[in-house]
């Protein structure tokens, strides 16, 4: 009785504000407002197959993939270096990685505008050595930079956590058995750290593929991502049915990528992956 009573408020809340809204999005994606009221239609999804929109989806996935790979390539060595430090230095570097995350996400992204702008700091520096101003802002490169800047800690933290929990004796055993450092890394450290890599990849890819803030602020109107498309349907075009269809596609995309990642994790966490 007591347990029912104590869970009841949240059960009701999560049904009304988590389940019902998502069912509504699914519903909106499957109807269209016809002359005689709403009717079942796959119009939203069919509209999305227009090359114009598929291109937006393609670009979003492509930029998100690029930023995920960049975060991994930059973040993995960083996590390795950090895991080799003294415990006190580990704590300090960890705090320093996390600290910027505590600052407002929009401010962190905004901070790049005065640096990359045409009259910004970087172009000012370039001018002193005689290089004419470059267009660094409002393009895909700027959006990519913004993503790596914002999401790098999401990659570093899980990898770092796995690395410091790793059983050192396994590495020593490999060394004793005559493996060189590269071999130890490829055959022992990397496969064992894969769970960390998988959650890092998930935590970077997910926000990167669905963002509209970074592309709005650093891409100007030049970079249109899936997030921007959804936002526009709901807030300026008012085609909610189409917006809901795109959202469903986005959710499906994330579910599929999580499923794929889950599979790699299962294959990789035990024995050698390569």
């Amino acid at each position: 009785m007591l347990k029912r009573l104590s869970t009841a408020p949240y059960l009701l809340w999560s049904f009304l504000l988590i389940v019902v809204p998502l069912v509504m999005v699914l519903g909106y994606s499957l109807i269209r407002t016809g002359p005689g009221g709403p009717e079942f239609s796959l119009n939203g999804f069919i509209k999305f197959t227009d090359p114009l929109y598929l291109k937006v989806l393609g670009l979003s996935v492509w930029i998100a993939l690029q930023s995920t790979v960049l975060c991994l390539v930059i973040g993995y060595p960083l996590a390795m270096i950090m895991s080799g430090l003294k415990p006190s230095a580990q704590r300090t570097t960890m705090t320093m990685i996390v600290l910027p995350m505590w600052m407002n996400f929009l401010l962190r992204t905004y901070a790049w505008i005065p640096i990359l702008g045409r009259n910004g700091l970087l172009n000012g520096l370039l001018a002193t050595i005689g290089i004419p101003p470059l267009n660094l802002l409002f393009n895909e490169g700027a959006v990519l930079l913004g993503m790596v800047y914002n999401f790098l800690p999401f990659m570093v933290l899980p990898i770092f956590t796995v690395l410091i929990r790793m059983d050192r004796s396994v590495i020593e055993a490999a060394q004793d058995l005559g493996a060189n450092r590269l071999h130890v890394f490829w055959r022992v450290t990397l496969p064992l750290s894969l769970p960390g890599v998988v959650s890092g990849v998930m935590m970077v890819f997910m926000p990167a593929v669905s963002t509209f803030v970074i592309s709005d602020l650093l891409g100007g109107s030049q970079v249109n991502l899936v997030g921007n498309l959804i936002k526009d349907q709901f807030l300026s075009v008012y085609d909610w049915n189409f917006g809901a269809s795109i959202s469903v596609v986005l959710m499906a995309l994330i579910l599929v990528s999580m499923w794929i990642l889950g599979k790699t994790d299962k294959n990789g966490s035990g024995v050698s992956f390569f």
Partner: protein
Amino acid sequence: MSRWLQKSYLFLIFTFLYAPIAVLIVFSFNDSKSTSNWSGFSLRWYAELFQDDKILSALYYTLAIALISSLISTVMGTFAAFGLSQMRGRFKGFVLGVNNLPILNPDIVTGIALMSLFVFTGTRLGFMTMLMAHITFSTPYVILSVLPKFKQLSSEMLDAALDLGATPWYAFRKVILPEIMPGIITGFLMAFTLSIDDFVISFFTTGGGVSNLSIEIYSMARRGIKPEINALSTLMFLTVLLLLFVINRRSEKGAGVVLPKTDTLERM
């Protein structure tokens, strides 16, 4: 890798992470609007910031919503976690699955879903809808941080207290509460920081002139560079430093939060 190479790599990364923040802070004291030329020290952007009614009202809404939503979600989440810890089987799995939805779904989907609900039911978008949205996305984090504490709790302790003549309420306060308190505090801090930092979900669920700091920064930033934002960032950064200092002193005693999202996802 040699020590020297490692140190330079760390230095490079930290320059990348902190350069933008440093630029914002330095140029918040710049006398002119420029962000490439230094034209003298001045506090004028701070003065203008505090005369900006929009920013002040956004600050008020940010704090009010963060405080109310984190309190409500902590209470509701703690009770839900207690009930869930007593449950078994498929129903519990289903509830936890629903609970994970707002954590795993992209913010934009949560945002438009809630907006659809509010608009469909004719609820006027504003303070209340934003508050409800914040409670919705923070309670799952509270549940996930309190639930493990209930699992660790031994039922003998409660039985012993009751056998020794404690009333259920007294036993709850003196036996159960101290054990689960670290989880509750972690959950509350998570809810609070998530609420303060949220932009996307607030953006879709507010209206009628009610905005939080994130929304205000977004609309200011889209209109171009405004030095008041630099002043605001500096103040917010200092506040965060101070807050972290306080939390870290606490966390030496056990309850620590690093990053709500990473912490939770790792435990899932």
